[in-house]
């Protein structure tokens, strides 16, 4: 395929994903699938991810968010970028956006325990969605081999509070 066409098509996909991300609302609402399936471009996604890292290290939070959003759009399966982008969004008090992004990440990478963990924390403390928090704590716990006593305590507390 011609390289120029490839970039143009990718830019279109990025903009569509960004719009979808911005429009997503409601803690329990599943993210909508894009009408056009993204074209995975891990190489490009990685470049953007690195740019984001650099920006973050330089204290350029908006630049880091923008880069990582681009990276996620190019490769939604990159759980690391998804996770870290969600944490940056949380820092910006964009709790709903962060949760949505993590849910997308969980869907793309359901076995990444950290995604579940962070989604559970944000749901518990910042969205007061205790049910979702309990689900994802439990998923986290299931995915981790080592016993995390803290998380176990939190699950117990949640279960008690939800009774």
């Amino acid at each position: 395929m011609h390289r120029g066409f490839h970039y143009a098509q990718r830019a279109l996909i990025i903009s569509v994903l960004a719009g979808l991300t911005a429009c997503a609302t409601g803690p329990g609402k599943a993210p909508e699938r894009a009408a056009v399936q993204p074209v995975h471009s891990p190489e490009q996604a990685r470049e953007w991810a690195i740019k984001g890292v650099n920006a973050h290290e330089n204290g350029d939070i908006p630049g880091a968010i923008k880069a990582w959003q681009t990276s996620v759009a190019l490769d939604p399966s990159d759980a690391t970028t998804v996770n870290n982008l969600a944490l940056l969004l949380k820092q910006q008090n964009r709790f709903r956006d962060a949760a949505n992004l993590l849910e997308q990440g969980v869907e793309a990478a359901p076995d990444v325990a950290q995604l579940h963990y962070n989604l559970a924390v944000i749901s518990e403390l910042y969205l007061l969605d205790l049910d979702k928090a309990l689900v994802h704590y439990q998923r986290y716990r299931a995915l981790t081999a080592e016993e995390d006593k803290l998380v176990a305590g939190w699950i117990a507390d949640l279960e008690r509070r939800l009774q």
Partner: protein
Amino acid sequence: MNRQFMRRLSLAVILISAVPGGSVAAQESFRVELGRDGETLGDMRPVFLKFESRPLPAISPKEVARRYQKLFEKSDEPEVRIDALNRLNNIRDRSGQDIGFSDEQQSAVYEEALASYESILARGSFSGKLDELLYQMAKAHALTGQHEESIQRLRQLVGLYPRSSLVPEARFRIAEAAYNAGEYQEAETGYRQLIEGDGHQDLAMKARYMLGWSQFKQGPAAWNRSAETFMALLDQHLPSEATLLDPPHTGLDMIEDSFRVLALIAARADNSATLAAWLGNRAPVAWPHLLYDRLADLHALEGRFDLAVGINQAFAGNYPEHSAAPDFLAQSVDYWRMAGDTSKAREARADYVARYQSQPKFQELRGQQQALWRDYSRFLGDYHYAAQDWTSAAGYYEVLAGHSGDTGKLLHLAGDARLQAGNRNKALENYRSAAYGARGGGQQRYPDAAEAGWAAIKVLKSTLEESAAGAARGVLAELSSEEQQFGKTFTQDPRLSGLRADLANRWYEVGAYDEALAYARSTLVLESAKTEERYATWLVTARVRQRTGEFGLEERAWRQALLLVDSEPDLATTPDEPEQIREQLATAIYRQGERAAASGDTAVAVAHFQRVNSVVPNTEIAIRARFDASNALLKASEWQTAINELNRFRLDYPAHELTEEVSEKLVYAYHESRQPLKAAGELMAASERAQEPWPLKLRAAALYHQAGELPERNALYMDWLAVAPDPDAAADHVQQQTMRHRLIESGVDSVRQQKAMVTREAASQWHSEETLLWAGKAALALGASVAQEFAAIRLEHPLERALERKQKAMEQAQAYFLEAESFAGETVASEVLYRRAELYRTLAADLMASEVPSELNELEAMQYQMLLEEEAWPLEERAMELHSRNHGRIASQGFDEWIGQSLEALAVMHPGRYDRELRWMSWNMEENEGA
């Protein structure tokens, strides 16, 4: 009347009268002498009659007579001598010349001739005609004074030779002899025989004439017969109108004498009644007017003018349609004049004029009669005019104008007379006709037509002057119409311009501006218009333009008027008139400025306003114009120019009332031109002069605020809040709270302002969202400050006192926080919850950290510590509860910084539930790069 005929008749009388007396006397025996009336009727004689029988020879009668005379003298033969004598007589009779023998010779000659006749008759051997011989002998006897013998010979001739051609003449002479002898009945018989017999027509006519005389001479009893005879003679000689024009020469004397005798008879009878009776019994005749005239003349000649006039009147009455009727009436005028009775002569003229003044009657008059009618009318008109009988005079002039070629002058006079009589309408009618419809002599316009037209205008002007206000407009319209006709007809009349100028003024006075303008225009186009007329016209024009709002044209008119009155000061009716015009001019310019300003044409408006000063420098209107120029500039947003003008205005007219408004306008201009500091400065300067400075200062404060000049603003705020009365309206409350808010923001006297803010808001019945928010934040700030003080209070011994102080501070802070929430509600709810929670948390912590009294032993110290924990525990619970409530607000209000801080506090206070660390992930770059 047939004057020509009458003259001919009169001429005949004169000729007869001129015949030499000697000749008449010599021939008396064989001539009838008429035309010379005696002192009595008996003395009256018929006119002289001539007998003509044979034609004259071709040679000179005088020469022929000389030869016959010589033959008579030389011949011895009786026949020759008689014949010569006969011829000689014939020649003299025929030629009418005094030729042949003289009168003295003639008697001797006839004496000799008689001897010859006697000799011939005695011989009995006369070879000629005996009838002729007898005739000649009769003649010779007559010529020699032997009348009886003469008649005897004639009787012989009639008796012996009844068929002789000489018989008619013989009979005539016999009758004449009887007439001359006073035997009138015999003469009547003789004449009648001659008339009734066959014979000589000429003699018959003469016989009829003499028959009339014979009857007349018989006295009144026979006068009717005589009149009938004479009228028959007239019928015979004047049978028709044509014969009146060309009467027979031979009978002229008899005709004239017949009229004379008839007149005499009528005069001695019943005058016109007699004539009417005679003529009434007859078929219509051609000559009745001649008879009436003769009778009238007869009376007039004898001084009986009343009778003469009566005859004239009778004829006019009996024959009103007769062509001579006007002549009789005119003759009456003459008679009265001859009688010296001017009054009756005038009445006769009036009668004449009245009878023929109608057009049809007038047209029936002959040329001379018409001329006479005009003379009379003019005479009467002039007479009454001089007598100041104006109506009568006007009547005559008017009717005369209808029948005259020179109507203009007459109608002009009639107009004057009507005007004098007070009849303006008729006067107007006459003047107009004289001016526009009439003619002068011939076909030329009446020379004084313009004067007549002007007279009509003067009449209308007089009427206008006397008209009531309501009727004036109608008269004015009529006057205008008159002017138009006058102007059209007499374009060069020098009075026209004055009239038009006057009309322009009058139309203006009644409010008819279009008409006023039209007349003003029509005046100005006249080159002949005088300066004062132009001046008046420009004044009218200016006023009309002023009324109609055409200020440019109004200005032009005022300028023209000013130009004139400046060059000729006498034009002004009052000394201050030029100044008044200048003021009007200035006003006109001013109005143009106003209009231009209203339509947004600022440059023009300003130019107009500024022009005013050049007309009336430094007057009130000039000052106002300058002020309005500034206003126009303001309206046009030409700020800097307006500012400059306003400043100059204030400088030039510091004491003028308008100057008071300058400051406000300057503020406006500064403000609009984004010079708020200058605007504020202007307000502050104005406030120093104002009785109520604070409104100005507050506006200045607002401008300082707008300009960011906070120190000046804040100073004004502080001053105002220090003296401001309690708000009595919502706006005042908001204003003051706004000032406090701004002072707080500026950090000026913040605590005091915050306290005031809270206090005022709590006390106010008026609130706005802003004031509530500001009060809420002020309360929060105060609460936070108190909370800071609260936190700083160390719980030291004696603990009770410290705790009391701390508790009091906490209550105060709590009160502020709750008040803040009561003002600002949800807006400050998170912070209030956080701060309130922190109060409890702080107190709990401070309790736990409070100093244990040193005098306690270890156990007591433990118990004391437990006691503190017991005291602190509910406080901490309360703090957690409040923070937790704040955290729970995420669901309803969303996250905010104060919830975040509560969450952080909760993480410390209850880490098992709230202390969470999110986990970052790191990229496995190498792995990925290798993938």
